[in-house]
């Protein structure tokens, strides 16, 4: 096949494959573009596309047609106005954000010493075992853990009450405890990774210079750990913000943003879509703030 090349003799018409190969060989960028278009198509259609669909739907509204409702596709901001003007939506959003912050703080307080022990105190062997132990709860189903906590939190007969004498029962407190439990590994692992990278010599230098443990932690460890902490908090914060089933199972009479979306999406999809943009906006703000700290490099 290759004999026809070169010389002055007119080349026999090359195969289309060959033409394409020659065409692409000289165009690096086009080659790269073609390679990437598959994954990007997926990203755009399935990933971003869903978000766009959500945003577009949030501009529509429902009109009654007898017992059924029909979605009218005249874009308007009425749904957002409803959300801003109706106190209950604001209250629920504030409650959800508060819970997300509480979960993040609880996880941070637990994760810091645990991760420090894992990275700096434990032997190499037990370190591996500890990593497995911390991530093990992730192997069990989310619902299994939710139902298990339902039993433990029961205000009359739950394990928590048996052991501590009191139980937060079903409500906001119980929900926060369970969510903090569920998302703890997502906080421990980034902090552990951050501490693992922290050279021991820095800690020794601080001690040599007379720094107490607390001073070393505040002035050496914490500043270097901020990106890891922010990375972990992105998980704990966003997962809490998006959760609805744990609240449904353990929230008693309280509702989260997710519960409101759930109860509305069958009856008033545009309103549900509009409300769903609230956690998205919060997370965009959070991520922008996180980027400023350089924490996104940790993810």
């Amino acid at each position, binding site marked *: 096949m290759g004999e026809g090349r070169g010389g002055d003799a007119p080349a026999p018409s090359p195969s289309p494959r060959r033409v394409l190969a020659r065409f692409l060989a000289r165009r690096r960028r086009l080659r790269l573009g073609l390679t990437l278009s598959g994954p*990007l198509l997926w990203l755009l*259609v399935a990933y971003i596309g869903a978000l766009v669909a959500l945003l577009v739907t949030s501009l529509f509204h429902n009109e009654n047609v007898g017992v059924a409702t029909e979605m009218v596709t005249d874009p308007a901001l009425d749904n957002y106005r409803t959300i801003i003007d109706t106190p*209950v939506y604001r209250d629920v959003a504030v409650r959800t954000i508060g819970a997300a912050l509480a979960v993040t703080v609880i996880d941070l307080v637990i994760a810091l010493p645990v991760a420090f022990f894992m990275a700096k105190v434990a032997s190499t062997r037990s370190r591996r075992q500890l990593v497995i132990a911390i991530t093990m709860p992730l192997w069990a189903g989310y619902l299994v853990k939710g139902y298990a906590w339902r039993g433990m939190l029961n205000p009359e007969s739950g394990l928590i009450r048996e052991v501590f004498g009191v139980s937060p029962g*079903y409500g906001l407190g119980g929900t926060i405890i369970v969510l903090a439990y569920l998302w703890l590994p997502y906080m421990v692992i980034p902090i552990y990774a951050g501490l693992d990278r922290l050279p021991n010599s820095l800690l020794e230098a601080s001690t040599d210079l007379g720094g107490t443990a607390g001073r070393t932690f505040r002035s050496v460890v914490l500043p270097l750990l901020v990106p890891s902490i922010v990375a972990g908090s992105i998980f704990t914060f966003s997962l809490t913000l998006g959760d609805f089933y744990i609240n449904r199972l353990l929230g008693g009479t309280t509702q989260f943003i997710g519960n409101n979306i759930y109860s509305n999406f*069958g*009856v008033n999809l545009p309103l549900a879509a509009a409300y769903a943009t609230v956690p998205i906006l919060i997370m965009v703000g959070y991520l922008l703030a996180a980027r400023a700290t350089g924490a996104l490099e940790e993810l």
Partner: protein
Amino acid sequence: MHRKGQRLAATAMALVFIGAACGSDDDGGGGGGASDTTAPVTQGAIGEGEGAVSILAWPYYAEDGSQDPNYDWVTAFEEDTGCEAEVKYFGTSDEAYTLFGTGDYDVVSASGDSSLRSVASGDAAAINTELVTHYDDLAPFLKEQAWNTVDDAVYGVPHGWGANVLQYNTDEVSPAPTSWGAVFDPDSPYAGKIAAYDSPIYIADAAVYLMATQPDLGIENPYALDEDQFAAAIDLLTVQKDLVSEYWSDYVAYEDNFRAGSTVLGTSWQIITNTLQADEPPSPVDAVLPEEGSTAWSDNWMIHADAANPNCAYEWINYITSPEVQATVATTFGEAPANLAACEGIADHCEAYHADDAEYYDQLHYWTTPTKECLDGRTDVECKDYADWVAAWTEVKG
């Protein structure tokens, strides 16, 4: 810097390709389901089974023995028809309506508060009742009614009906309650251990109580509430919130609450009471139909307009409405069977549940979808529609 520029260029190139591939197909929002105006065409005959059927049902309506080996009527259906049944349970009518709307299910056991919505959204198929073997045996007051028949086309085959009951812990609650007032009394000694049903339709339960206690409001139908009547019901529910430990929609979790004693009083289904009483040892639980009457359900099997397995769907309806299966389901679930032929073997049960008693049937208030046009026939006022109910329920929960 150079590498970054190259990457950007590659990305831009990829976007161009995608843009070309997508063409004008960039409509992000889904359109609303427009209802058909042409006369519905029904299936002519039941052909050979497709080997599978996807069933969307209220809990306990399609048991295959996996929860309790004593509750199994799906296995026999599968053996008889060769249709492998895949069962999905839902907890509220809103859930049923939404799930059925996905088109992933062939049949649904719809209550009146979702059936008409499914018809109007075009999700339900008109049913050829000649293909329904036991249709003639079904109680006449259940057939071709407002909640299962639209413009003379039948969309629902009656399954069974019953009232929502007041369930209580017999050890803790004394004397036994006789009125819904037990769950609405702001001074209740059981405050903090009362449960309510987590669905906007529960507003009707408050309205039923108001019908008896505040006749001045003039509520005729708990699903037809004008501005004032609706406000009174919402006020009652807002007061109730402080008494409530939990709004339930997960019946398994609800049963556990009664077992643990963390809930001692609340609205319930007879099947939940039956299940608790069947515990070993029996949980101290009983249920009454309060003196005010009650909200109730009247369930119908509906077939999806785009059912993947229409033949097996008809087979399922024929099986689940057959006398033997109806007797089993009715006694298990605690409801009146739609098929009166089922009563031959379970006469006591049918007596207790008034299966053949049209007059009794009329006294209960069946779940139905509230509309702006008042369901009780009033034309001088506008009633609150279901969207209002949903919004108000969100506010009650706060």
